[in-house]
């Protein structure tokens, strides 16, 4: 019993550290979810995902410029 507790604690600690590191470096290596929302912005597409009988999730993918075709410089600025 004590072994299970200790091993679980150690594994959760390792996972927690991994999570922390991943979030610390996300500025340079964005999370896939962030990349997806950026992609929605760039393409000017909003997404609605319904996962139950009342609602779900909404990704507001409106491009900051209102249209998709902008210069790379402006695109980089807006991201």
């Amino acid at each position, binding site marked *: 019993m004590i072994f299970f507790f200790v091993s679980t604690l150690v594994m959760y600690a390792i996972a927690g550290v991994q999570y922390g590191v991943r979030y610390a470096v996300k500025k340079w290596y964005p999370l896939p979810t962030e990349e997806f929302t950026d992609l929605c912005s760039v393409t000017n597409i909003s997404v609605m995902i319904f996962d139950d009988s009342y609602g779900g999730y909404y*990704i507001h993918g409106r491009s900051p410029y209102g249209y998709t075709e902008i210069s790379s410089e402006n695109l980089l600025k807006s991201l």
Partner: protein
Amino acid sequence: MSPDDPSLQTYQIYIPLELFRTYRTTYVQELNLTVNEALQKNQALSGAASKFFSRDNAIPKGLDIDRTESTRKIMNKLFMRCIEQVRAEPKKYIKERPFIDRLFNRPPIDDLKKERPVLFKDKWYSFSNFFLMGMDWDFVMLDSCILSFVIQVSLYDVELDIKLLLGLLVAYITDQGLFFIRNWRGRRNLARHTLVDDKFLF
């Protein structure tokens, strides 16, 4: 969209019940009918097990998607109107979700009864749960259980010196197998629900 957090793009949304009912009874029903007809034409495999292991395309061949186009456009406009309503008065419709509601995943009943949309800020990208990406802690618990199980079982073998390594190996192999199934089934599921061929998913 939110004035106090302009860069926030992700929200949890609850749309008016009437709109949701319209969506279910018109668009989803019509879409299901079209997909089922295409499936029947292709004489798809009927058994659940054979469907699970099927290597056919997730979208049935010969799907006449144009049939649903007019309904799709109408629903798209209704949803856009709903979002424009929120954009016009964000302070009224965008809210912070109470802790208890978040804990029990309780919908905002009062607002839904008044037939108005509600958006909750979702700073932690909880939509990723829908893509089966939020199961990290479940996998850690599974690994821990496998590790303990293997060590308990191997305790009977006194000569075995690599109990911990064996447990880790079994946990690793199980994880990899589950990742493969999740990836494979997830792609097919996504393709079937978005009606985008899984060759275009990356």
